[in-house]
């Protein structure tokens, strides 16, 4: 079990890295507008679905 003397400090270093990444994200406005990002992906998909069939309508089937 003495491996914990090595693994736990290693985990601590990872923790520090995670906290640093989190603070960086907050400072760079990654948490500013959560509502919009949550929805954006849905809309883009729809746009493509709506836009794609149009040119295909005109191409004759092979």
């Amino acid at each position, binding site marked *: 079990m003495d491996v914990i003397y090595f693994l*736990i400090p290693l985990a601590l270093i990872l923790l520090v890295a995670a906290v640093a990444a*989190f603070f960086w994200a907050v400072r760079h406005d990654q948490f500013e*507008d959560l*509502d*919009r990002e*949550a929805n954006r992906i849905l*809309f883009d998909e729809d*746009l493509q679905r709506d836009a794609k069939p149009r040119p295909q309508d005109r191409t004759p089937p092979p």
Partner: protein
Amino acid sequence: MSDSLAGESCFHCGLPVPLGTDLSVNIKGTARAMCCPGCQAVAQTIVGIGMESYYDHRENCAPGTIPSAEIVPEFLGNLQDWDDPALQQSFVHTNSDAHQEITLMVNGITCSACVWLIEHHLKSQPGIVQCQLNMSSHRARVVWDPQQTSLSAIIRAIAQVGYKAEPYSPAQQEAAIRKESQQATMRLGLAGLGAMQVMMYAVGLYLGAFEGIDPGHEYFLRWISGIVCTPVFFYSSWPFYLNAWRAIRTRRMNMDVSVSAALIIAYVSSWWSVFTHGREVYFDSVSMFTFFLLLGRFFEMKMRHRSQESSIRLSHSSIQTARRLDDDDNPSLVPAERLRKGDRVLVRAGEVIPGDARILGGDSAIDESMLTGEHLPVRKLVGDMVTGGTLNVEQPLTLEITRDPQDSTLSTLRRLLDRAESEKPSITLMADRLARHFVAGVLVASLLGFAFWYWHSPEDSIWILLSMLVVSCPCALSLATPTAVTAATAALANIGFLSTRSHTIESLRAVTDVVFDKTGTLTEGRFSLTRTVPLADLDKNTVESLAASLEQASEHPIARAFHPLTGRNDVTDFSVIPNEGVQGRWQGQQLRIGKPGFAGAGLTNVPPAPESTGQWVLLASEQQALAWFKVEDQLRYDAADLIRLLQHEGRTCHILSGDGSGHAREIAAMLGIEQVRDNASPQDKLAYLKSLQAHGRHVLMLGDGLNDAPVLAGADVSIAMSDGTDLAKVAADGVLLGQSLTPVKHILGIVRQSYRVMRQNLAWALGYNIIALPLAAAGFVPPWLSAIGMSASSLIVVMNALRINRYNERNTAPQGS
């Protein structure tokens, strides 16, 4: 009034389609009804750019919350002004690539579909380099290439899809909000990560306590827990210590005092126990406790920021410009606040008068409705005084500014408003009252418990003290009302009511009297055509289309009543006669429309107007009178319904109007309102309100005008209409987002429901503490269990508050979109 007749509602904005309107747009293969040409144009644009799915995705679109698509013509007409480089200096930045950048405030955003629509539409415009819209702050950052496009083109593009955008310079308060929010996020995040780690080590220690653990491992785990807990204890919990210190200095108890006491005792005694190889460490409790408390505070802060942001948004008035004349009469654009007494300015038709001034040249009609509530323009000649903020309707005017901006009528009104606000009846929030006594009680009880155990069994005294402090932590108590208010605020926003003060919800509950302003609140605040009486052999459609084509030439409020009608293109040679009417040629005849004395000049056989009341407009040719039109400021379609419901609930309704024409009394009679006061100045209105309050009544005021602002500020609680003046919106406690009054009745329902939830929450929180505290004092609850109990009781409070949102699902019919 006529909502039972109008069967269909507008597919774009949700308002009922007026009878006889036949407009539609083909959306995804189905013809959808539209209520006005404005909505039709917007819907056509949306379909034209291939973004029909906007209609599938939008949310929160109760009728009327969609901004009216009819964007005011003055707004679009004066857009080129924004391209003036001198004016742009204060809000446009040029970045390194010679691109220009601006922050725009976009009005009317309700959901992410709006954001998506605007962003995509803008990105498809030429010259737009970057564009990003923040959904919660309604701010858009746009970067463009000045070679390819202009600011006015960008604003016009946004208007094409139905939103109004204005240049915006961020307020200082906003920077503060942003900083606070970032710090709180970091504190919360650190506490969360820390708590997870420490809990992991704690599981090891707990298991070790039961199964046996190597003392070296136990010592190591305790050290590591302490190290991870330290940043949480110092950085994340810092706000608690700060607040507690402030409370102690001002000798007022708050819950941060007991929180800080628990944290410090737990942290210090845990390190003590690490060094002395004592029985317990409480690092896990410290970090969990911090995390849960911060989580509650975080939600509370988010809610506070949201209401602060919306009030900043409302108080932001667009940058007002003026055309100052130099010695050679050349106009140059300057911000209005830079005008000084003695400056000469040019005000074109359709522009807002930049300051209190005297007329040097010109003859025009001034719309003073924002000041007096009187919506017919008043004629002003050379030498007459005009007030800043009123609208020049007909002809260009040259003015001499007579007062510096800070002494203007507008500023005086603002001072009246400030005074009224400071005298506003204050409401003590239920939770504050309770919490203050509660915390003092808990501290005393814990110390007594500690003293007792110290005497009996000193080694148990510390953890019992901790358990008592943690288990009775008034988290649930402190969350009881904020969560209910947050949930209610969200529910209210969904039905189109934006609450901008934190007390709005508790104040609304006690309302006994509802006072309405007339123009713009009970009525639509604009004229519309209500009756057409053809006099000659032309039918109704023909005379209406003739009138519409003629009146297109004028921006007079009465003329605008005809703008929604479809005109024809065979009418030519228009000319507008100020304050009289419009003339034009049709099929070789001279046609006139306007005041009977003007249109019917020289005619002998004009029949009298069919009714003696109301505004009548005459259309005549050179030979004969062709038609009478009645224009009225119509009641909002749901006004009658609302009044009936309020009276049914036992609330007294009042009308308080600045209008002296008797229209207020007419409307009161129509709606069955007995308390009417018309011809009232802002001071009169405030006095009326004070006399009601002196009789112990709790007054809800609804208004829209500048003259309502002091009353809105002084009322126990007040609501402003969305198209009201900025000052009215700032003065009010909340703003109705749409064109309809229906949300008011749901507002009262949601408020009742949230008050019920608040009481349940408080009862639960108090009950829980009353049971848990004696148990902890008796030593039955170890600290880890008390932390769980504390979290669970808070969680129950939060879940209960979420039920408020269900009010909407039950009581407001699903909005088809």
